[in-house]
């Protein structure tokens, strides 16, 4: 079931050696790409129908075309601020095949005419930072970066910028602020980064995995790539499988694979013969679904009702030892801490959500609390400035639908508890 494209070099090459990468067809596609016209490359990307792999799923070609039309100085950014609980694919990509990211970035830069690039890596990823810095240095020594790349007219450089422990910096404008040396607080959109990004210049921001896909697309051709995957999304996806499964790990599957296949066939099913209770998709900002929905595809449009599909491809499996509200509480504590504090609904909203969920955790919840929770998550969802608040409440919205009984039962149990106390 696995389809190996992005992870083809994993554990087969030494990430510290550019020689290994070159031996495995590395930078060959860049060589070819530099002979093409930028428009021809963009056409291939358009044909491939690839969408961004960072979670939002925006068509990459549209994003790139939007920037290409601008004439100013341009930047390119690889978003490697992977901080969503349950996600580790970008770390694996950086630690196991760093040059494929660089190759993808150079091709993108050539296509849109950017002169400088950043890889923004979260500060906790010490190994990945070290490997990426070394890879950039080696690429520069071999003239894949720097002036007149491979004797062409095109010049481009990349530098690593480290995050310092702020989840919000994965949000594009917070990331831009951070690269500019400021606290990572988002900006009001529009203008979008493609219009006014780093130092107000047009900026293309893509996820690590998106960049890694570009050499693959050019290698097989956009049309062939579009054939991969499902009717909705083309290509393959790296899935970060964690939680109570026998074999947690990173798996590459084509879109269209079901959640069940990933958990049972690749992950070996639930650990220690226990029962599956719930699965969180995409990470802390993703929906929590019950057992009977695991036949869905990893790209199922159904998730859109919570404004969050598969996110960046995390599947967190939880068995029946765990309490739903305990899990939601942990998610919400995470967002309470990670809110940048710029907009009120997010800053104060998450604090109140945590207080309300605590009542459910401690069997002190009433029907009124449920109503308050419902209206509060709606307000957060509708009114926050950036993606954090728009998605953070997915675990509540989804469980109010799929685990409504749990909410009702908890309210009844709370009532009984308070009566016995009297």
């Amino acid at each position, binding site marked *: 079931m696995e389809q190996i494209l992005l992870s083809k070099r994993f554990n087969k090459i030494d990430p510290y050696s550019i020689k290994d990468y070159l031996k495995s067809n590395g930078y060959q596609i860049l060589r070819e790409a530099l002979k093409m016209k930028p428009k021809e490359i963009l056409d291939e990307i358009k044909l491939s129908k690839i969408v961004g792999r960072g979670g939002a799923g925006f068509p990459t070609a549209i994003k790139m075309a939007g920037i290409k039309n601008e004439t100013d100085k341009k930047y390119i950014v690889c978003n490697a601020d992977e901080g969503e609980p349950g996600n*580790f694919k970008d770390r694996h990509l950086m630690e196991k095949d760093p040059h494929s990211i660089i190759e993808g970035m150079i091709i993108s830069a050539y296509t849109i005419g950017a002169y400088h690039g950043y890889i923004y890596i979260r500060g906790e990823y010490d190994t990945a930072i070290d490997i990426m810095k070394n890879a950039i240095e080696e690429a520069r020594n071999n003239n894949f970066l720097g002036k007149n790349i491979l004797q062409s007219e095109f010049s481009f450089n990349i530098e690593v910028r480290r995050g310092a422990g702020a989840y919000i910096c994965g949000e594009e404008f917070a990331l831009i602020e951070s690269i500019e040396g400021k606290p990572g607080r988002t900006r009001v959109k529009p203008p979008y980064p493609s219009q006014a990004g780093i130092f107000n210049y047009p900026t293309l921001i893509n996820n690590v995995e998106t960049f890694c896909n570009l050499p693959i697309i050019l290698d097989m051709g956009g049309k062939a790539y579009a054939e991969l995957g499902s009717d909705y999304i083309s290509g393959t996806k790296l899935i970060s499988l964690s939680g109570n499964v026998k074999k947690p790990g990173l798996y590459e599957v084509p879109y269209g694979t079901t959640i069940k296949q990933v958990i049972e066939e690749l992950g070996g099913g639930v650990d220690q013969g226990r029962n599956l209770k719930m699965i969180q998709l995409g990470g802390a900002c993703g929906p929590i679904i019950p057992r009977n929905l695991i036949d869905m595809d990893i790209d199922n449009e159904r998730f859109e009702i919570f404004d969050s599909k598969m996110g960046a491809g995390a599947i967190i499996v939880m*068995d029946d030892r765990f309490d739903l509200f305990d899990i939601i509480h942990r998610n919400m504590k995470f967002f309470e801490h990670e809110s940048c504090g710029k907009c009120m609904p997010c800053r104060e909203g998450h604090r109140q959500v945590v207080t309300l969920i605590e009542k459910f955790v401690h069997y002190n919840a009433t029907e009124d609390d449920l109503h308050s929770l419902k209206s509060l998550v709606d307000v957060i969802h509708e009114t926050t400035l950036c993606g954090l608040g728009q998605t953070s409440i997915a675990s509540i919205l989804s469980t109010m639908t799929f685990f409504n009984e749990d909410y009702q039962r908890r309210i009844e149990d709370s009532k009984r508890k308070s009566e016995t106390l009297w």
Partner: protein
Amino acid sequence: MLVDSILNHYPKEKDYVIEILLDVQKEKEDNFISQEEVKKIAYYLDTTESHVCSVLSFYTLLSTKPRGKNIIQVCKDVPCYVRDDFNLLKTVKDFLGVNFNETTTDRIFTLETTACIGCCDEAPVMRINDRVYKNLTKDKAIKILKEYRGNDY
């Protein structure tokens, strides 16, 4: 001087402030940025102290208060939590005899919690300085802590 030698590595451009702060803190035994250092960094980058402070106080990895020689970060998010059947947090707390955001009296360890560090496939994990220790069991965690403590006696 420590700060000066780090500053010399960087262009005098404000956007390098986070990089500089991370580097300065890393080189310091007590893992924090002092007011003196803020002043120097601000002067070098030709920016205000309040700008440097706004960055310093925003990011979790940076500290304005002295900490221990080794920073222990225990992941508290769901993927680690559901695979942690021995209570890693409590194990570390009990071994060190401190609570979160506290430093041991010998100033060897500061205990912190962290958001997910992207090692959920090998949970539960903790990060000590720049190393991540994965697939922890109770014995393994204690052994690691003992080794760190031992190195300092």
